[in-house]
């Protein structure tokens, strides 16, 4: 029995028991369902072993949406607990676990897979390629992310969740003050998914640098491709820091080393530095692809080319460089002295300049345009003023002397949500609506989409703007309760109302998918938005090989110019297409990594060692494997293409007669 005691929850509550039962029932339901409908083969052949960037993108997308609701449930619990003084919904320990998992889930397991989803779905299409550079590595990236995410998410039913904040500062996260296995989960789950992210970084960089269609020079790449390239360069430079820091933290916790302890020569401040040397670039890893998506969407729905292409690229390069020079602003209050703070204060404020340039370029793209208020466009338009507010409060925080008053308060919480929600989350929802028809063959309902947008925007303003005020009134972040005398009550209640509106807003997204699946017409053609870049030049839904003929590119808006100026994108004869074979190894490695992670978390050494050996065996097997992929022959391509043309012909005819 003693062996099993370690898996018990250290601080159980009825809510956790209820979730345990729910998780067990849902898992059993899914397994029984798949078996009953005989879908195991389908799942294995079409999804678990796939190396197709589109399918991997869809798996990232689904995971991100699921995690959005997981992190959102944490958020609404927190706002409910703080909605009035001395609330008793959560106790201190439970609240600490919830804000920790909220942060980790939202950044690592919601925002990251969301941007990876769009990179996977869009980048090969946008550069006219047939897949990413290393398709099997791409599948491995996904399964490592997924293993990490699942590992992190079982923490609250097996062994207890981490409770030291998503920043996990030592010595609080060390063995002396975090005695449960929670922080082990943090270290191992982030490590596994972080390795996946690093691989994606290498993969996407290589894809964009080596696999662009003929004619697409660097300065003719669409803006989303540019933003993805830069974000992945940042990944490759920043994530190794996280990897090393997590490794050091893991050895501190499991093997008694003293990297971050306060005795025997350890240094707790070192963790904070490492964490933010990764952590600050991380926020630009999230925001730059979001900027890219906004650029595509604003340009499409203004029916205009993106204003100031060169300065857009230049500003992103500058942002990526500056992102590595500002980490200290996360702890101006650590006592580095006036000189250090002054330097980092200036570098931080400097980021406002390239960011401001981007805001103005988007405004000038709208200028003289023909603005269509579609759902993706609404998110993009809402983004501009809301993100500007988030940005200028960032400049305020960058004034280090004043930051002594903002630091660790709700003002800071308001600021970073004010950049991440309109900046990243709105971009992801805009991208979701914008690219949905390309991959699923029908549009999401515009009317429901618009109510989602309004619920989220009003909810966002109500939830987060009051925090600026309570922060200046002395409400520290991460407090699970406050007394009535503080006077924080009414504004926190307003925040809760806003959070509830946002929750309803997110629920309408699910309803929209269901409603549109039932009711939306399927005859939408391949270019429903009158868009401008290459991904819209191929069929909808996209065939396995993306493009039957590799496109010839003449400008950064290749598809628009093809439509307007009559450039011919697809020239020449059909040729056999070389495609990679599916492989089960990435999925299996994901499982082995999961087992390794779990064993390390609970310090069960025998399976840990076996799993580690298993990982190296998989890698060795791969290097001896003779797999040259397969070819899709011209005859087969012709058949597939003919099918698409037939469908399109039918659609064109039915379009005039019937409307579903």
């Amino acid at each position, binding site marked *: 029995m003693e062996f099993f005691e370690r898996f018990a929850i250290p601080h159980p509550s009825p809510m956790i028991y209820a979730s345990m039962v729910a998780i067990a029932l849902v898992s059993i339901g899914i397994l029984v369902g798949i078996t009953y409908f005989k879908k195991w083969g389908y799942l294995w052949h079409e999804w678990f072993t796939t190396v197709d960037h589109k399918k991997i993108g869809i798996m990232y997308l689904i995971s991100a949406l699921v995690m959005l609701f997981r992190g959102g449930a944490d958020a609404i619990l927190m706002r409910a607990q703080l909605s009035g003084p001395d609330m008793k919904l959560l106790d*201190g320990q439970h609240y600490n676990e919830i804000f920790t998992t909220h942060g980790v889930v939202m950044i690592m397991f919601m925002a990251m897979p969301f941007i990876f989803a769009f990179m996977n779905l869009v980048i090969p299409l946008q550069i006219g390629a047939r897949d990413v550079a290393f398709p099997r590595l791409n599948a491995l990236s996904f399964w490592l992310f997924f293993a990490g995410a699942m590992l992190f998410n079982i923490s609250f039913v097996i062994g207890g969740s981490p409770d030291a904040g998503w920043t996990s500062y030592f010595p609080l996260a060390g063995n002396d003050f975090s005695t449960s296995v929670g922080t082990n989960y943090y270290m191992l789950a982030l490590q596994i998914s972080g390795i996946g992210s690093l691989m994606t970084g290498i993969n996407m960089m290589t894809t964009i640098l080596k696999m662009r269609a003929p004619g697409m020079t660097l300065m003719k790449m669409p803006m989303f491709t540019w933003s993805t390239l830069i974000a992945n360069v940042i990944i490759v430079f920043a994530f190794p820091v996280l990897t090393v820091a997590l490794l050091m933290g893991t050895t501190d916790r499991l093997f008694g080393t003293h990297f971050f302890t306060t005795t025997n020569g350890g240094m707790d401040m070192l963790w904070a530095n490492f964490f933010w040397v990764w952590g600050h670039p991380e926020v630009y890893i999230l925001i730059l692809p979001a900027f890219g998506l906004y650029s595509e969407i604003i340009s499409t729905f203004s029916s205009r080319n993106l204003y100031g292409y060169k300065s857009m690229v230049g500003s992103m390069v500058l942002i990526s460089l500056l992102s590595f020079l500002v980490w200290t602003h996360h702890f101006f209050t650590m006592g580095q002295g006036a000189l250090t703070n002054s330097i980092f204060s200036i570098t931080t404020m400097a980021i406002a300049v390239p960011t401001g340039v981007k805001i103005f370029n988007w405004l000038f793209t709208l200028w003289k345009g023909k603005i269509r208020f579609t759902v993706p466009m609404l998110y993009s338009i809402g983004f501009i003023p809301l993100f500007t507010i988030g940005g200028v409060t960032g400049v305020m925080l960058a004034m280090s002397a004043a930051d002594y008053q903002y630091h*660790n308060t709700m003002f800071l919480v308001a600021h970073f949500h004010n950049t991440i929600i309109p900046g990243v989350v709105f971009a992801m929802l805009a991208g979701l609506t914008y690219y949905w028809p390309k991959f699923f063959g029908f549009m999401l309902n515009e009317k429901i989409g618009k109510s989602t947008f309004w619920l989220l925007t009003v909810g966002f303003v109500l939830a987060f703007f009051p925090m600026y005020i309570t922060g200046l009134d002395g409400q520290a972040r991460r*407090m699970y309760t406050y007394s009535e005398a503080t006077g924080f009550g009414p504004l926190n209640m307003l925040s809760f109302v806003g959070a509830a509106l946002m929750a309803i807003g997110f629920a309408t997204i699910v309803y929209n998918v269901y409603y549109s699946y039932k009711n939306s017409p399927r005859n939408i053609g391949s270019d429903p938005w009158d868009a401008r870049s290459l991904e819209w030049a191929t069929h909808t839904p996209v065939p396995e090989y993306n493009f039957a003929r590799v496109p010839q590119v003449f400008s950064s808006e290749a598809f628009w110019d093809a439509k307007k100026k009559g450039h011919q994108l697809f020239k020449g004869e059909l040729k056999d297409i070389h495609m990679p074979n599916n492989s089960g190894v990435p999925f299996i490695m994901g499982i082995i990594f999961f087992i390794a992670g779990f064993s390390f978390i609970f310090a069960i050494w025998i399976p840990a060692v076996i799993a580690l050996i298993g990982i190296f065996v998989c890698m060795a097997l791969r290097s001896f494997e003779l797999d040259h992929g397969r070819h899709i022959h011209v005859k087969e391509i012709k058949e597939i293409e003919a099918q698409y043309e037939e469908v399109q012909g039918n659609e064109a005819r039915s379009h005039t007669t019937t409307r579903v």
Partner: protein
Amino acid sequence: MKFKSGLLISLMALVTILAGCEPLLVLDPKGPQAERQASDIMLSIGIMAVIVIVVLVILAVILFKYRASKQPDDYEPPHIEGNIWVEVICIGIPVLIVAYLSFVSVQSNYIVESAPTGYENEEPLVIYASSSDWKWHFSYPEQGIETVNYLYIPTDRPLEFKLYSHGPITSFWIPQLGGQKYAMADMVTTLHLGADVPGEYMGRNANFSGKGFAENIFNVTAMSQKEFDEWVEEVHERAEPLTEDVFNKLLEPGHLGQMTFTGTHLEFSPAPEHNHGSDTDDLESNHDDHTSHDTQTDSTNVETDHSGH
């Protein structure tokens, strides 16, 4: 357009709520450092509000003027690459704003990191503020007094807080007297504060430090030097001395009320002033004398023993 009005209404609602309340702590400064910070905050809010309004107005005008429903069907938006002068203005104005704010920021850094202005000639009062889970210990080495969870300070005299922690990183913060600074286990940080006005102020740990963090607060009372001296005398007459055993009991995780002692814990458990930032010294002393390392380990063990009571 609905978006604009929605945003404006909610902003106005916020301002109304704001106006109906007591002044916000941070914007109601009672000391020179906090005043400087509050004026920086108000200055930046002003400049930033102008930027936000300008962006909002430009956006509103453009959306209104160039919406598709207002334009003829055959309107083809022009292809515009960008204009060097427009770009120069778009870069130039933010550069000027940032340069100005940087200037203010650097100046403020040096001001808040030095003794408060207005009473430079006074001798600073040195107070060691150390945190343990989840309390604050205030040691007045000159006065030979130690308090728990409350702080008496004289007005119109520079205060020099020496901060460190007996556990996780905490952050010492009295919003109305000035911004916060971290207290850490392996080094001592210095925070300069000053109080102009007698009164009671809220102080707290602002940095998350575990289960009891929310209640990790303390009261600050500012009074004239004369009253302060009287209080010191009174403490020496009435309070019990702080012994090592008593202090180690105080360090155990939990919450305590306000307590007063004569003597400080610094005498038997000194602040880690030379522990960190001088690793080389440690190494050298290890070379010179191997026992020093052992002593250190011993003292750690002793501490763990006590916390296990």
